[in-house]
């Protein structure tokens, strides 16, 4: 298996793991699965660094390992601990429907990347399509999940998709750029988790369908 095939294969594993994050009933388990998924992302960065001689991605692998495999899941799990890891409410999609939607997203993403003729991405179009599909799966998670902390994980999935696209198309940008994006992402998760915990203390639930006081 050459480097390009490995990266494309890992990108597919990324989709499977993100579906597992969306589908898991228990939010804590979902957060743990997100950590595993982020590890797959780290492997992709590392593979790209080795096989495509994209040296800045060695550093990206390390920063993603620290922030996405360890820090972000830790923030979410800590927030879940504070609210007693409630599994309600769980209107997860049927796994078959989720798979179907994921396939549609990948197809759509392929359509989006087809006209790209940029040298940097020409051989990695399948992986790039998967990264865009991954972003859309994150959005789907936010739209279909009612648990506030699962919605945060949906945002994290979107962010992982964008991060992967960044690695394909802009890995040569200065390191400070990646640091800026990662810092924003971590603070976003931290702030959303804090607000979710405060909402739980006021409402007694993480069900975002209950957030209906402000209308009109």
């Amino acid at each position, binding site marked *: 298996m050459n480097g390009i095939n490995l990266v494309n294969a890992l990108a597919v594993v990324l989709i499977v793991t993100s579906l597992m994050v969306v589908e898991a009933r228990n939010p804590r388990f979902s957060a743990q699965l997100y950590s595993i998924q982020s590890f797959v992302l780290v492997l992709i960065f590392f593979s790209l660094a080795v096989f495509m001689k994209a040296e800045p991605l060695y550093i990206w692998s390390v920063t993603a390992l620290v922030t996405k495999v360890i820090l972000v899941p830790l923030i979410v799990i800590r927030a879940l601990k504070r609210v007693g890891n409630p599994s309600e409410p769980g209107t997860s999609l049927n796994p078959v429907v989720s798979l179907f939607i994921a396939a549609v997203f990948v197809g759509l993403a392929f359509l989006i990347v087809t006209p790209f003729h940029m040298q940097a991405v020409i051989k990695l179009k399948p992986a790039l399509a998967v990264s865009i599909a991954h*972003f859309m799966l994150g959005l789907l998670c936010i739209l279909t999940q009612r648990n506030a902390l699962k919605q945060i994980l949906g*945002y994290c999935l979107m962010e992982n998709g964008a991060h992967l696209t960044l690695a394909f*198309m802009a890995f040569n940008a200065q390191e400070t750029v990646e640091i800026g994006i990662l810092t924003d992402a971590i603070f*976003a998760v931290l702030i959303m988790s804090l*607000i979710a915990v405060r909402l739980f203390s006021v409402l007694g639930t993480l069900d975002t369908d209950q*957030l209906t006081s402000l209308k*009109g």
Partner: protein
Amino acid sequence: MNGNILIWLLTVPLAVSLLAFGARVAAAWSRRILEGLHLAGITLLLVLSLVTVKSVLTTGNLSAIGAWFYADHLAAVFVLVIGVMGFLNGLYSIGYMRSELARGEVTTGTLSTYYGFFHLFLFTMVFTVLSNNIVLMWAGIEATTLGSAFLVGIYGHRFSLEAAWKYVLICSVGVAFALYGTILVYSNSFQLLHHAGRAILWTEIIKGAGMLDPLVMKLAFVFILIGFGTKAGLFPMHAWLPDAHSEAPSPVSSLLSGVLLNCALFAIIRYYMVAGQSLGTGFPRVLFLVFGVLSVAWAAFLIFIQHDLKRLLAYSSIENIGLITVSLGIGGPPGVLAALLHIINHSVAKSLLFCTSGNVLIKYGTRDLHTIKGMFRIAPFSAFLLGSGALAIAGCPPFNIFISELLTVSAGLQRGYLWLMVACLLLLVIVFTAFLRLIGEAIFGSPPGNVARGDVNWQTILPVFLLFVLMLGLGIYIPAPLYQLLKGAVSIVNAGI
């Protein structure tokens, strides 16, 4: 080019923010210390922003830290808005938060959080409009959400937390779309320049914009408009806005509405300039017109049915942002001039209205327009200011909004958009009717018996009066330096398109 002023402009609000937070950690806070720190911070920011504008006008563009930060005439317009509105809303904050403290809505401890986040929010907005590095510009806009989310939810009750949750989730998701657009533009530019350091700078991208891949640029612009359009409050991505703007403390609502929305528009304008050169202005302008008119239409009807004062003002922000987007869609020097002038005018008028709504809330204890009646007899000065603001935002002369709305319509007619302008005018009639009803009922009705007579403290009146002077002044006369600044910004936006 002397860019030191830009570094000061970035450092001061960040330092004041850290000091305000630090005061809490060190348990050294007291209301007076925090207010003194806050007052020094907003005054310095005002002075620095004015000096920046003057430097741009006299010596030309400024840049700092390897051109990562940059100020031209366009950025200077937004720096001016942040500096002036930051100062006036900051001034209003002192009296308003004192009242909130007296009413038991917040504690002294909360004040440190409030002022800390207030200056952090100002810092993130300055950071955004000064960023020449497109990824940092994106990071800046995302940071404005994170910096202001706690301000929205500061009261900690069900409503404000619900608003904060929707705000941070919807905006973060929306802005993630803009990240995709940013990556596409960078990647496209790198193909051309083969230099990572230069390819990420807007000033370098714009130089070679004509040679960027139009197909990639088209996709990137759609992502940018959806992403930053969410933050700007454009329909249909506006869902967070009425909640966040109505639940935040009034001076924060004012900053969110009068300043933050402009920062998102600033980023859209920067990318419009690149897209215009790469794929022509036709595609982006059509998108502007569609999103703009839909925003005005949706907001006009919701303004008409509102009975919550602050939600009414929030929908009016969507309407005005829609109008600015329509002006950008009309394009050409008259359209862009109308858009930029309306950005300034809307900031002034909306800040006045949100701050006055704070006075109303202090007096009546509610935002419900069924209860807010006879304000003229209860608090005559606040009533006068609310009435003036309502007339101004409805587009009446001699106030400033009338001038920029007139410019928009004349630009539209000049460029052949007769039916579009007729539609906009009809929608503006609906808005006018709604604000006229607001004046009739809230100011001239019979007051409820349980409301104490007399205006709120002078600290909440003075800043609003200064806003009134600005609102009236800009309706009668545009000072020469401001006109020169706007003219320069219009030339920049239209250069090469």
